């Protein structure tokens, strides 16, 4: 009996509610005649495409800057990398590699500057991160209009300048990872390449956290004063954490976009930070503690929930957008809950 209690405590009340909700959704989906294999395939794809973005929370939380609400900073760098690759005519796997290769140095610089900023505003990182992300998204809206991209598949056809709101990746490197080594069992399609790549990124981050720099980073996140006393530069660790997080976000959006089939520009990246934050929290992370397993579990739960909620919601309530409403309530509810746990009513 005490075992059951510890298990329950480990799972946590919030997660238990979500898991029960997920199960009832699955039963409901079966009830309304949805094909389980299609839902499972969709869930797998969405797990793969969102995993790296959620993974970007790991270095941020570990280094002590809290959840990275400034994720759009990295996402914009990733989009820039993707666009450059398309502009240069990159296709297939080469296009993807080129996109990531361009995105990484840009996001490293952006992450460094963002990390410098976060070092100046210790204690308010999450709020400032949100608005830095918002500001960057809106300044890049002007950027997308002015940048000298020429590829006709990307610019508005009539005006001849200014990038389109969504850019199709069919002719460049759309779903290269999804199709790589993909196979079918019954009706279930497994996007092997996508999942392997995302898990490989997790492995890289895991290895990093076991390296000397990674351990120093985790130490300065855990207890900055103690870390400083042991000769670790906390500010440097935080910058490394923020840089890594920003770079992962850049890779994450490239992976996301190739699977989604479109690059989404302008306002689209505005609120992209919230789903990964919610997923990580749902997986068991807090604003000060996180493990890779949290990221994987959280992404599976959160994305399956959204995938399965959609068809059920459409059957239950054909008009309106119930699944979007569920997404708003679940993701923000989880974040709010986590914030109350972290704050603890100090005076």
């Amino acid at each position, binding site marked *: 009996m005490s075992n059951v209690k510890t298990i329950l405590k480990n799972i946590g009340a919030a997660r238990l509610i979500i898991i029960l909700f997920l199960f009832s959704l699955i039963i409901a989906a079966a009830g309304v005649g949805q094909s389980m294999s299609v839902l499972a395939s969709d869930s797998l794809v969405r797990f793969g495409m969102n995993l790296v973005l959620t993974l970007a929370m790991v270095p941020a939380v570990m280094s002590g800057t809290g959840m990275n609400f400034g994720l759009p900073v990295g996402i914009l760098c990733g989009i820039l990398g993707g666009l450059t690759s398309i502009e240069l005519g990159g296709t297939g796997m080469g296009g993807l590699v080129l996109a990531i290769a361009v995105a990484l140095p840009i996001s490293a610089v952006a992450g460094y500057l963002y990390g410098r900023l976060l070092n100046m505003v210790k204690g308010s990182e999450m*709020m400032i991160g949100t608005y830095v992300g918002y500001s960057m998204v809106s300044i890049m809206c002007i950027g997308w209009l002015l940048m000298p991209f020429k590829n006709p598949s990307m610019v508005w056809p009539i005006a001849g300048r200014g990038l389109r709101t969504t850019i199709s990746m069919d002719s460049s490197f759309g779903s290269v990872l999804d199709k790589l080594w993909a196979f079918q069992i019954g009706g279930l399609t497994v996007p092997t390449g996508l999942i392997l790549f995302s898990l490989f990124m997790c492995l890289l981050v895991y290895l990093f956290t076991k390296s000397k720099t990674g351990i120093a980073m985790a130490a300065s996140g855990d207890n900055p004063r103690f870390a400083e006393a042991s000769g670790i530069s906390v500010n440097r660790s935080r910058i490394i954490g923020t840089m890594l997080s920003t770079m992962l976000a850049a890779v994450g959006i490239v992976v996301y976009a190739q699977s989604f089939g479109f690059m989404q520009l302008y306002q689209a990246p505005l609120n992209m930070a919230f789903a990964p934050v919610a997923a990580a929290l749902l997986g068991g992370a807090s604003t000060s503690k996180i493990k890779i397993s949290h990221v994987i579990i959280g992404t599976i739960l959160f994305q399956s929930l959204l995938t399965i909620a959609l068809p059920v919601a459409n059957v239950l309530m054909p008009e309106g957008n*119930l699944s979007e409403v569920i997404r708003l309530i679940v993701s923000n509810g989880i974040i709010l809950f986590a914030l*109350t746990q972290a704050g603890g009513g100090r*005076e």
Partner: protein
Amino acid sequence: MSNNINTPKEGDMGSKVKGFLVTNIVPIVFSVVCLIGVYYSGSSIPIILMDVVSRFNRNAILVLSLIIPILSGMGLNFGIVLGAMSGQIALFMVTVMKMSGLPGVLLAMLLSIPFAIVFGYFTGRLLNKTKGQEMITGMILGFFANGLYQLLFLYVLGGIIKIDAPNLMIGSGVGVRATIDLAPMKYALDRFTIMNISTEVDIFTAMMVFGAVFALFYGVRLFVKKETELALKAKLGLSIIAIAVGAVCVNMESLRQWRALVKVPLLSYSLILLVCLLIPAILRTKLGQDLRAVGQNMGVSSVAGIHVDRTRIVAICISTVLAAIGQIIFLQNMGNISTYNAHENVGMFSAAAILIGGATVSKATVGQALLGTLLFHLLFNVSPMAGKNLFGSAEIGEYFRVFIAYGIIAVALALYAWKQTMQAKAQLEQD
């Protein structure tokens, strides 16, 4: 608190001017940006003024609603989104009751208050659990509440609560339409007529009316109460000049276009004036002193016997109620509710406006709120045209103003947090 850093030193004129510049750098910079925008927009002044007067009318109370939480140390209350929702729920109820005109608007305001107080109470409870992270909590709460709000308007209304108003509901009867027409209440406040005299007058008449009100107010203080401050005399002088300018211009033939275009709704502006007077009045009471004490230092206030948590809840409730009323004024001027979006940007735009007026995360005045509203909406009005004329694309101007809104909040928050870190460091070195 950190706000005494920039106060000008006593001394020669030069350092005074410099002090003034440093203290008011944000509104000064934005005034310059606005002037450039006005110049390049190519619109005529009365047309810009017409738009700014009505935008100011729509937004002023929403911006003013941020002051009290700021002074209570809770930062920018992004939770006023919940106030806006209360206002919209009340307006929906009034529309279902088929009320119209001024009674409808007033009833909506009355009905919105209990909603706003309940929402404000829960917001306050939540913010008390997340001290130090109030702003992000308020913002996420706004998103979360938006989800619940959509659930209410999409499924609960009509689905669970039967509503007999086919013109408001989607064909199936479940869920409210994306736009609620407020035609029966449009301009109910703005164009209220009393004995066939419209209270919406041209700008010069409005100058005379408000000039007279202020002149009377200052005159009484000066001559009846025998106060003898120089500033008071100057304010009286300004009021009289306003009356004089209004009286001269109101009959000038060359300004006919101004009179035809720029209309000031006296009743709505009186309401704004009332809120402007109400906020300092609240701050002068015992409650107001508690609010500011809590804003200065929660620990000390608690030791001094102030119920910190309760005071903070009251501050949020006041703010939410003001926001509800502000949103109703906004919507009666618009003439329709975009059911699912009207509240979304209320928090962000209001916060940007008050910061542009020179407020910070811990200090704000009525004057800053009003100036900020004016500058922010002037910028909003001119930037698309200026963008078109400067860069050949109106979109650039539109994105620019959104960038300004987000950017000013980011910079203000960062500067404030940075100052606090520096202070903490200085404190540490002193110990």
